[in-house]
């Protein structure tokens, strides 16, 4: 399976199953498309007769004076054009022989074996505070309460969660703990105590805790920042972008905007972290479909690590992304990608989380195909110690999996989540982006389809567009280096 597309003047051919990416000119682009149509489904090669067909079709399209330059021939010298086409067909054949084009999906059995391994837990999302000092309109946590009541996690519950993680992590060394909420800084003392406890325990058990924290910044001060910079491997700073955009959706409980309070603190924290290991992280909604302006706003403020992501909310909400918004959002992604290239040329580059892609050192295929890990290696813990498959399921009582005192009781649910991967979803099997999203988000699937092994279709459309932009940026980088 291949995916061919044109973006920002680049012709790109993605060989889906090998992950190989080819940047090609117009002629090769057309040859590959014809080759794909005519190739034998087993050998993936074309017959001599088919080669003649390809030569004829390409020749018919390009034997015009305006294309002579493309073939580096004098106008009218069409024999040379035919030889050039034949040469390119041989190049395509070579890519097939090298396992870089039309490769088969050979991973299904491999992933099933992989998924049948013993489950270990390696990441927890600690809901350190089911309370919040903002009242964001789109909050899936319902202003921190998650369909429940306000509560802060006690040190005892948190400690038991860390003990559970260590005890169930098998031979995994890197363990992740995200302090999440609500607003985790509303329970900062417990955060500090748990980090201290974790640091003691990691030495005893030969583990390495990677602590992260997601905050709205209201309670951020110098003391908190110093602690975060010392202990947190990543900090996520929630802010939506331009002042008017942020303040519309992220008001305080008395209705005032939060932008002016948080922005100086976020700028300082980013600088103090040397512009690494953090994200300013915004949500865009139907109210700001021109979200590339919000990314630009962050870039202009000097932020280097930026993430602005589409809201995931049900259609009845007025701010929800609708199917009809997809073309506009795709345009914005294109606009943003071009802006990033421009800034890079100016030496003012920045990262946009959803366009980041590691082609040469990215994750193995097992990681890429086996799902996000929710309900298996990743669990959310409520302030009172209940386990849910992830932070987005918290409060959905049918997904209550156990607790820090008794461990996982609903092993049936764990099995359901374990089986959740790209091969359990028909739509993923046909999607070129499946190696970049791992089958998507189970919580989104549940929210929109009522089951965990389906897809959230608007999210998929946007994901595909982001993958295309991310690859285009890599193509531009590679071609620019020549």
């Amino acid at each position: 399976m291949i995916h061919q597309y044109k973006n920002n003047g680049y012709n790109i051919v993605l060989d889906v199953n090998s992950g190989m990416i080819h940047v090609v000119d117009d002629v090769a682009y057309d040859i590959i498309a014809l080759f794909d149509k005519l190739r034998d489904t087993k050998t993936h090669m074309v017959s001599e007769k088919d080669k003649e067909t390809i030569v004829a079709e390409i020749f018919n399209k390009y034997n015009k004076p305006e294309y002579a330059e493309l073939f580096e021939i004098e106008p009218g010298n069409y024999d040379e054009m035919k030889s050039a086409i034949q040469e390119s067909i041989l190049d395509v054949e070579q890519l097939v022989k090298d396992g870089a084009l039309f490769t088969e999906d050979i991973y299904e059995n491999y992933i099933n074996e992989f998924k049948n391994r013993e489950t270990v837990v390696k990441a927890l999302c600690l809901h350190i505070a089911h309370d919040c000092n903002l009242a964001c309109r789109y909050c899936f946590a319902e202003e921190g309460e998650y369909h429940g009541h306000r509560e802060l996690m006690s040190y005892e519950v948190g400690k038991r969660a860390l003990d559970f993680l260590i005890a169930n992590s098998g031979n995994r060394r890197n363990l992740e703990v995200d302090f999440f909420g609500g607003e985790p800084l509303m329970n900062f003392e417990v955060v500090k105590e748990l980090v201290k406890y974790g640091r003691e325990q990691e030495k005893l058990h030969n583990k390495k805790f990677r602590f992260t924290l997601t905050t709205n910044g209201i309670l951020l001060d110098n003391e908190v920042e110093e602690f975060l910079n010392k202990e947190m491997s990543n900090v996520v700073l929630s802010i939506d972008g331009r002042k008017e955009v942020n303040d519309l959706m992220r008001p305080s409980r008395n209705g005032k905007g939060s932008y002016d309070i948080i922005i100086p603190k976020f700028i300082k924290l980013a600088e103090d972290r040397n512009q690494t290991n953090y994200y300013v992280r915004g949500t865009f909604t139907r109210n700001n479909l021109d979200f590339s302006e919000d990314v630009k706003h962050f870039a202009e403020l000097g932020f280097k690590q930026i993430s602005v992501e589409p809201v995931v909310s049900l259609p009845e909400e007025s701010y929800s992304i609708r199917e009809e918004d997809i073309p506009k959002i795709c345009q914005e992604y294109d606009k943003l990608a071009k802006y990033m290239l421009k800034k890079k040329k100016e030496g003012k580059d920045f990262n946009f989380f959803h366009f980041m892609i590691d082609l040469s050192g990215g994750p193995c295929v097992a990681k890429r195909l086996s799902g996000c890990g929710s309900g298996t290696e990743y669990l959310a813990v409520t302030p009172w110690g209940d386990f849910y498959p992830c932070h987005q399921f918290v409060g959905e009582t049918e997904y209550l999996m156990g607790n820090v005192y008794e461990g996982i009781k609903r092993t049936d649910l764990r099995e359901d989540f374990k089986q959740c991967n790209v091969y359990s979803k028909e739509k993923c099997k046909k999607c070129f982006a499946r190696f970049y999203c791992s089958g998507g988000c189970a919580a989104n699937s549940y929210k929109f389809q009522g089951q965990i092994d389906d897809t959230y279709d608007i999210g998929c459309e946007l994901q595909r567009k982001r993958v295309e932009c991310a690859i285009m940026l890599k193509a531009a980088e590679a071609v620019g280096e020549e």
Partner: protein
Amino acid sequence: MKRIKTLNTRNLKDTMKKGGCGECQTSCQSACKTSCTVGNQSCENK
């Protein structure tokens, strides 16, 4: 190849041999919390 430039990409098939150690970051912990993005993460078992 005159008309084709292949980017420096790790062939996914090759990652079957040593892959699956599980030491890499959980996708949802990085920034998203609302989607699943794995392509941008780095392998910790090179």
